[in-house]
């Protein structure tokens, strides 16, 4: 259980699931959820390398910055999605093709 490869495999599976969500979901909010999964798997990798590389605290700092970036990304993305819904009355990412209506 307590090995680097275990955590790397968990993160790899999580990353694949997030990627699957991003490429198959058509709802903008659901695509965002896939992106959150991908960011979390990256964080898991950072912390696993931090622990098994000799408890290096720089990995924790990077994970902290990833979390900050995820919060920023979620706020801006949801503002954009709400704007798209106002203009197109749908958030299906396949239907949103025109730059203006």
């Amino acid at each position: 259980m307590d090995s680097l490869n275990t955590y790397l495999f968990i993160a790899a599976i999580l990353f694949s699931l997030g990627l699957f969500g991003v490429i198959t979901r058509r709802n903008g909010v659901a695509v965002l959820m896939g992106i959150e999964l991908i960011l979390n798997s990256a964080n898991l990798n950072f912390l696993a390398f931090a622990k098994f590389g000799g408890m290096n605290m720089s990995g924790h700092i990077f994970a902290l910055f990833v979390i900050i970036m995820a919060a920023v990304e979620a706020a801006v993305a949801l503002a954009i999605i709400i704007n798209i819904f106002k203009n197109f009355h749908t958030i299906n990412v396949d239907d949103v093709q025109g730059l203006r209506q």
Partner: protein
Amino acid sequence: MIDAVFWFIVLLTLGSAVTVVLNQKLLYSAIALLFTLFGIAALYIFLWADFLAGVQVVIYVGGILVLIIFGIMLTNRISTVNISHTSVQRGIGGMAVLGVLLILGIMILNTPWHQADYVEPTQTTASIGTLLMMDYLLPFEVASLLLLAALIGAVTLSRRAE
């Protein structure tokens, strides 16, 4: 005992992650994401990152997830009973993702990762604070600027145009 807890958490995390990407009801996906994020916070504790586990719960569960549920509620009409959404081309997508997972797995097993001896730290929060104020002061300030920019940007974007 601790092994059983670890594998239970892994199973909870990955199982609810599968629900997030496969369930056809958007709200169920959001609730499953809640369990995934909690599971990942628990894995952080196994990695001795107690401060980041707290941050994960506060920012992801308390902030981002609430934002996502807000997004779901605001982009669906109340009259729409089933807030559902469809997936397309699951077969091709699944095969492509399995290929990616296979490549990642081979890469993980074949790479000689650098590993060093580690001891359980007595404190993590103090070292993170010291690093933020010494080595990573510039990124820290840039992050605060980024948050300010996102705050103004989100307000400007979602304001009703006159």
